[in-house]
């Protein structure tokens, strides 16, 4: 097997070793390889495939090392021949190669692994990498769920954690089937997840563990510390997804652990006040009394170990999860929000972004006012090339010029029909010409500066020209 390490990346030799030395997972590899072979557009012989896979994994390593998290759209795992873009998925996974095969990654933020030897340490890694490559992106959420990724967002966390667990015991099953099983067996599995997770209760859980006493807000805080550990076992699947939103809460976790009653939100007080007594007693019993939830409800909240199950806290939890989901959604929308994890900082970013967008709309509308001083959109479609002398209708009637802007754009884009539009503009400009303004504005626009900069420059220019 060739061992051509791409520069600065994980030497595929490592993987090759694993690949070839694998005794137990041999069957895995074979099945994985067969699935690779069967994946579309993959008709190259085995060694080349392995090379490609190694290259793929190497690239993953490098991407991972850059610590970058690509947007969710890069989930699409392409067949081997196309450049792999599994940045997000693998980052979430690679962060924790150490835990047992079936255990989910624990933190929302992959810990950048500078030492790639962890890859080689995990015999199942290459197998999983191969498995990744055979996805054709059909089941994004389930795929993400395989690795317990928080950015899966839409998929409920319980199913994501348990689908990951499903990978472990099942070996040669096709991924898609597994994913479907995973999703259907939603509620059933979560309790089983807790066992391997608690068994491998590790440092990774620390981050999530801190959030736990806080999360069980209905439970009396005095007992938070006692049950912190078993709680943490159950929490990673959810904490992984919500850790960013709980980051602030974890800070107050210790305080709450000591105080009986948290004073903070009134809503919570209601819940905690009523349930503090009950929650304490319920805790011990709740640990084992997890009845399988009926799948008929569409809002599924599973009581976690040590958490009170009264309606208040459940509703609270559902609400909080909804909120964190929405915040994730916003995070994807607002550029540059992926790195920040604090609620407040993100809110700041969102507010800034909305403000800047609104200002942009305002600025662009002013600009349009100068660019087409007398353009009558309503009559554009009626113009003929010969009609050079048609004076444009008054602008006042074009209260909604932008409603037809789409039509205008498509209209004007057609070369043969661009003339009337052009003529309209010509006429408009002849009657009220603002050429210097236009040229400067046009230049600014043509530069396509980032919105903040182009904004400021162009608007200042508008002002200057306007007052000259």
């Amino acid at each position, binding site marked *: 097997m060739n061992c051509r390490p791409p520069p600065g990346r994980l030497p595929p030799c490592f993987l090759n070793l694993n690949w070839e030395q694998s005794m137990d997972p041999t069957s895995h590899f074979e099945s994985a390889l067969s699935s690779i072979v069967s994946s579309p557009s993959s008709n190259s012989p085995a060694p080349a495939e392995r090379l490609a896979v190694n290259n793929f994994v190497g690239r993953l390593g490098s991407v991972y090392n850059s610590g970058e998290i690509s947007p969710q759209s890069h989930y699409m795992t392409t067949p081997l021949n196309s450049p792999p873009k599994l940045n997000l998925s693998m980052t979430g996974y690679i962060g924790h190669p150490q835990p047992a095969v079936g255990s989910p990654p624990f933190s929302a933020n992959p810990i950048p692994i500078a030492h790639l030897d962890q890859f080689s340490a995990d015999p199942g890694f290459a197998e999983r990498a191969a498995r990744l490559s055979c996805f054709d992106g059909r089941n994004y959420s389930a795929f993400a769920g395989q690795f317990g990724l928080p950015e899966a967002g839409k998929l409920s966390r319980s199913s994501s954690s348990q689908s990951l667990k499903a990978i472990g015991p099942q070996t040669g099953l096709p991924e898609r089937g597994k994913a479907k099983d995973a999703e259907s067996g939603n509620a059933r599995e979560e309790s089983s997840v807790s066992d391997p997770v608690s068994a491998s209760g590790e440092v990774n859980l620390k981050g999530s563990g801190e959030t736990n006493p806080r999360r069980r807000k209905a439970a009396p805080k005095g007992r938070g510390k006692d049950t912190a550990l078993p709680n943490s076992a159950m929490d990673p699947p959810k904490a992984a997804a919500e850790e960013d939103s709980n980051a602030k809460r974890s800070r107050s976790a210790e305080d709450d652990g000591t105080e009986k009653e948290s004073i903070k939100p009134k809503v919570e007080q209601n819940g905690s006040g009523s349930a503090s007594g009950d929650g304490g007693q319920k805790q011990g019993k709740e640990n084992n009394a997890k009845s399988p939830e009926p799948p008929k409800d569409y809002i599924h909240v599973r009581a976690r170990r040590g958490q009170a199950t009264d309606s208040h806290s459940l509703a609270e939890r559902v609400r909080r999860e909804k909120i964190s989901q929405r915040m994730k959604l916003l995070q994807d929308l607002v550029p540059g929000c992926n790195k920040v994890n604090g609620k407040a900082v993100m809110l700041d970013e969102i507010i800034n972004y*909305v403000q800047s967008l609104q200002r942009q*709309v305002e600025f662009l509308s002013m600009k349009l006012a100068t660019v087409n001083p007398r353009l009558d959109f309503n009559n554009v479609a009626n113009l003929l090339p010969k009609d050079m002398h048609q004076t444009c209708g008054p602008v006042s009637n074009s209260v909604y010029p932008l409603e037809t802007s789409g039509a205008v754009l498509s209209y004007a884009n057609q070369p043969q029909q661009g003339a009337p539009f052009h003529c309209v503009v010509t006429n408009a400009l002849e009657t009220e010409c603002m050429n210097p303004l236009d040229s400067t504005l046009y230049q600014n626009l043509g530069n396509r500066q980032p919105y903040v900069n182009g904004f400021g420059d162009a608007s200042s220019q508008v002002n200057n020209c306007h007052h000259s």
Partner: protein
Amino acid sequence: MEDQGNNKTLSLIKTSTSSNSGFLERGRRIKVAAEMGLAESSRGRHWSRALRDRLLRRIGNGACGCQKEGLTPSKVAEDLVGEEGDDEVIEMARKLRALQKLVPGGEDLAMDRLFEETADYVEALQRQVNVMRALASLLGMLEKEKRLMGG
């Protein structure tokens, strides 16, 4: 001919600059139209309805100049915010209130709904900005062509 064009340009600029209100008025009208288009683009949304109401009210009241903005009492954000420290709660409340003010119709939305509406509003704004930018560049290009062709 070019001189003529330049003179005309200068004179026109003078007249246009003298009629500041014309330009501003036009700009404002275009902005109203843009926002109306924005609201129309996502009809079913709460913010879209609120925006449209606001615009129509403004247009209706614009003549008499009265600014009747029925400010619904904003939901106190402390209720909406999850567990936080005291300062943090205040911080968050302030930010949430700011966001509520930004998003049309956000004043009477709870936190989760607020985020939902914000996400949709942001998307619509992005689309709107793209459309307007494309339009402006298109028009600018056409003008440049016209100038180059010795208009």
